[in-house]
């Protein structure tokens, strides 16, 4: 049942030009970045060759590429998630789901998975670029896999936050702006140089970015994994509660 909703969500995305445009734009920008990063690597290569424990192609090309795509997706994710619920409420189609024999959890998870599936597809296309380096270089597969996993987790939290924000309003644009606000805030929250160590530590922990960085370094730590899972789960539960509550408030 969840998958039925997810499949329709994904299909609807691809029936609008939005999904195609997003894929094209991101692919174009990342391709440009990939090439320039590759250029840098070619320039550095002679010097790196002589160094002991020098950063490899994964560190110089793949990691920055994934990091940038994380930020780029932060800018574009709200455009995907904004209409998930607000559009349905506006056009009255939400009552179809609400009057069907589905639980609120089914509906929210279905929507979330639909969006997440789209993000994964995006990620798969991005991953093709660093993977193409396999042809001529010694790519660190483990490092790349960790990076991709980190990015996937990051996107899951984007999707959950976006879905929740979309539940709060009937206006897709308002949903997009508030999603964007939350994501940016969570991204930059550790920029504040606090005086007290414990406050800085908290902000540091809350930041979306710091946890991604350790994945990009090839570091798979359960703390980072837990952070993303908790964040995703929190917003999904909030979303389910919100949808249930909407039946009460009308």
């Amino acid at each position: 049942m969840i998958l039925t909703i997810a499949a329709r969500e994904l299909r609807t995305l691809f029936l609008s030009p939005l999904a195609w445009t997003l894929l094209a734009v991101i692919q174009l920008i990342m391709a440009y970045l990939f090439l320039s990063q590759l250029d840098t690597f070619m320039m550095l290569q002679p010097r790196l060759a002589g160094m002991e424990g020098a950063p490899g192609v994964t560190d110089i090309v793949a990691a920055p590429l994934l990091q940038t795509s994380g930020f780029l997706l932060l800018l574009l994710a709200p455009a995907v998630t904004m209409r998930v619920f607000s559009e349905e409420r506006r056009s009255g189609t939400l009552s179809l789901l609400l009057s069907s024999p589905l639980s609120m959890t089914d509906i929210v998870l279905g929507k979330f998975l639909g969006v997440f599936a789209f993000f994964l597809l995006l990620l798969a296309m991005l991953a093709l670029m660093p993977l193409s380096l396999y042809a001529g270089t010694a790519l660190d597969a483990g490092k790349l896999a960790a990076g991709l996993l980190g990015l996937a987790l990051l996107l899951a939290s984007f999707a959950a936050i976006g879905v929740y924000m979309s539940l709060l309003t009937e206006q897709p644009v308002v949903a997009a702006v508030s999603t964007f606000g939350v994501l940016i805030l969570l991204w930059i929250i550790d920029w504040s140089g606090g005086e007290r160590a414990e406050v800085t530590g908290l902000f540091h922990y809350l930041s979306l970015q710091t946890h991604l960085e350790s994945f990009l370094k090839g570091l798979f730590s359960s703390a980072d994994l837990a952070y993303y899972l908790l964040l995703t789960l929190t917003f999904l539960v909030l979303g389910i509660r919100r949808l249930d509550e909407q039946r009460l408030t009308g």
Partner: protein
Amino acid sequence: MEFLAFPDTGQIIEHMDAKILISAEHLHRYYGHHCAVQDVSFQLAQGEVLGFLGPNGAGKSTTMRMIAGTLAPSGGRITINGTDLLDQPRRAKADIGYLPEQPPLYRELTVDEYLHYCARLHRLARAERGRAVARAKERCGLDDAGRRLIGTLSKGYQQRVGIAQAILHDPAVVILDEPTVGLDPIQIRDIRGLIRELGERHGIILSTHILPEVQATCTRVQIINQGRLVFAESMDRLQQRLAGNTLLLETREPADADALRTLPGITTVESAGPNRLRLVFEGDNPADRVAALVHDKQWGLRELALDRRSLEQVFVDLTCSEPPAGAEEVA
């Protein structure tokens, strides 16, 4: 006598022993401090078509939404086909087909895609889906629209897709919120026929503010005003209520009012235009005696009819005045 009386009395079967499909008890609904629905209770049995009437903003749609489970009541209980809607929403909702005021259509899907999606949402088995979709399309006259995009369909066709969606899974209870809005007269006739046909095996609630629609399709009528049920009766009882105690007589030659007045039962005779008289009677309907007199005196009978109050008048009486005497009849 046969051209008067109450034509529908014999046709309406009493469903006293039929299965109760919907039972709503003391429904309340507040929007903030505003009370949209106040202490509404009613039941719907299998084989009934319940017409829900009321002016705009009376609480019709709110009540329908609560029964369909898309809106939670602030107080009260709803039981659908023996299952409590609030305790076991998933089981209860499996028995509901609901067409909201605004048909819940995805404009970017084709009719077939949309109906298949709805079939999946209602957990129909894969093998059953094709048949269910084909049947719903046939019933709603959508046979040749299957591959068209919903967004490009006319309002009437969209409405039909909405109805098809509501009856797709053959639910015990069908809730239709203003089903004939935007349809042309022929489509309206078809849909009314469909509603009557569905009403034989299912329980149907339909809301409308088109009064003849209620008279054409429903077996029971409820009128809601300012969130309260002000009138709830079966259609045949309503017909009796509407029958009134006035005859209209039209003759070719001017009739003698005094002669008519001498007929037993007739209390008042007044003019209602050239060669037309309005006869107020009490007790038995004296139409046969009137006809005999007109025949004897050779006035030339043109018309003799019971002057019915229209449902419209009842509706206006009930919704424009203070809570009327009819309120205590509400079960």
